[in-house]
């Protein structure tokens, strides 16, 4: 796995998309920092970008990278290495290269702004963690979709719908169901619902850290009430980690049984 990871990463960090992604985050972080002139407000604005964009770019790049390297993967499959190492190596290579662009793109402006030593350092680190986690999660999910679909157009379609569902539709459905069942106690139901959407999970994680109750929303408030801030953060973090691990295991599992 190490070798495939090494070469995938080496290939990808020289791709122009890595630079575009890096520059995008660097520019938006810099402008938000200097325009809002308040760290925690800038972090909230950035959070909204991260929560939408990291999953979208992860999904798109995941599907695209799999289909683009399809033929080279066949060459690799004919080499004396295990399938696991090929697919997990490629997945990690892509996830790490996008994460590097993201972390540098957001981190460098923050360093210049003087984030170290400021009271919001931990919030900023939470935001970075959330962005990296979402990148890993959605690349993993995209890889599963691509492995399951030989047809590129179909694969792309499903991937886009997945993103749309998680980022937009899920919340709408959730609100509708709260509205429809308002006569019933919904605390536990909403807690469960949140754990099944990594984007919501990550939003709550940042909100809990920032401790802005006005922005927590209904579910965040329940989460906070139910677990308290620190236990809530531990649970949200471990759920996010599970969201990273489960797709990764699935990639290994699916690739083992697939014909190429």
């Amino acid at each position: 796995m190490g070798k495939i990871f090494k070469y995938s990463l080496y290939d990808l960090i020289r791709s122009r998309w890595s630079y575009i992604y890096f520059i995008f985050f660097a520019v938006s972080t810099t402008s938000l920092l200097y325009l809002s002139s308040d760290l925690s407000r800038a972090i909230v604005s950035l959070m909204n970008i991260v929560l939408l964009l990291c999953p979208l770019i992860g999904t798109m790049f995941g599907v695209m990278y799999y289909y683009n390297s399809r033929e080279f993967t066949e060459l690799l499959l004919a080499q004396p290495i295990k399938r696991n190492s090929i697919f997990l190596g490629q997945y990690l290579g892509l996830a790490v290269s996008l994460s590097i662009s993201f972390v540098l793109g957001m981190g460098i402006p923050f360093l210049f702004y003087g984030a170290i030593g400021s009271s919001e350092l931990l919030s900023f680190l939470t935001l970075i963690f959330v962005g990296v986690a979402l990148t890993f999660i959605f690349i993993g999910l995209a890889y599963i979709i691509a492995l399951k679909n030989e047809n590129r157009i179909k694969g792309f379609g499903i991937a886009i719908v997945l993103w749309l569902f998680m980022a937009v539709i899920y919340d709408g459905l959730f609100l509708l169901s709260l509205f429809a069942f308002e006569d019933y106690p919904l605390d536990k139901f909403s807690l469960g619902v949140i754990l099944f959407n990594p984007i919501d999970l990550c939003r709550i994680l940042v909100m809990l850290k920032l401790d802005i109750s006005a922005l927590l929303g209904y579910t965040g408030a329940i989460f906070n009430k139910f677990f308290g801030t620190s236990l809530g953060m531990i649970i949200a973090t471990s759920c996010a980690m599970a969201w990273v691990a489960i797709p990764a295991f699935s990639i290994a599992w699916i690739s083992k049984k697939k014909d190429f």
Partner: protein
Amino acid sequence: MIKVNQLKKSFGKNEVLKGVDLEISEPGIFAVLGPNGSGKTTIIKSILGMVLPDGGDILIHNRSIKGESDYRKQIDYLPQIARFPENLKVEELIRMVKDIRGQEGDEKSLIEIFELEPFLKRRLRNLSGGTRQKVNLVLCFMFDNDIIILDEPTVGLDPIALIRLKELISSERDKGKTIIITTHIMDVVEELADTIVFLLEGKIYFKGSLKDMYEITNEVKLERSIAKILQKNKEKQTLENVAL
């Protein structure tokens, strides 16, 4: 060397291999031929472990390949489509494949044969299809293993490269290697192949020398004898359908 026992494989409802038996025990050039969809690529991919058979067994040097990956050290493979990581340079790709295989390769003479010297420092995304195929050939032939599998090796090559490739394949045979080729270019087969393996509807229809094939079909050109086999088969099927 390679032994295939009752190999079966279906993709959904499509039964591609219906119990293929094939034994390749001597060195030489084996051309796997057959109409589109007859299972050529599926057999090759099964030998390489890319397609997982539904039934049957494949032995390489008397050892079953089921669940193994190390046996692929003994096989050099040329995939049909030459596409590589776009941002790597040619020399980096060569180094990468050697590193992954954990084998020493001799690429120098091959780079000379296919005149790739000027491209070594170029990124792969900037190469033409023919040049990429030459890189593909280098990656396959630079290792010195006794089984070589070539899937459509002539795609996109100019006449000079084609001649050099044929010379290369013959010289590898003279070293006592076993070479399995699939191709649609009949000239290549007529010029090189020692044994023809003809697949039809998921089974091996014929295995023998070119001469035997000409004798059976009463023809002197490979193209025509294949056409004759296919035609006969079609007539047989129609007859069977009528009888039913």
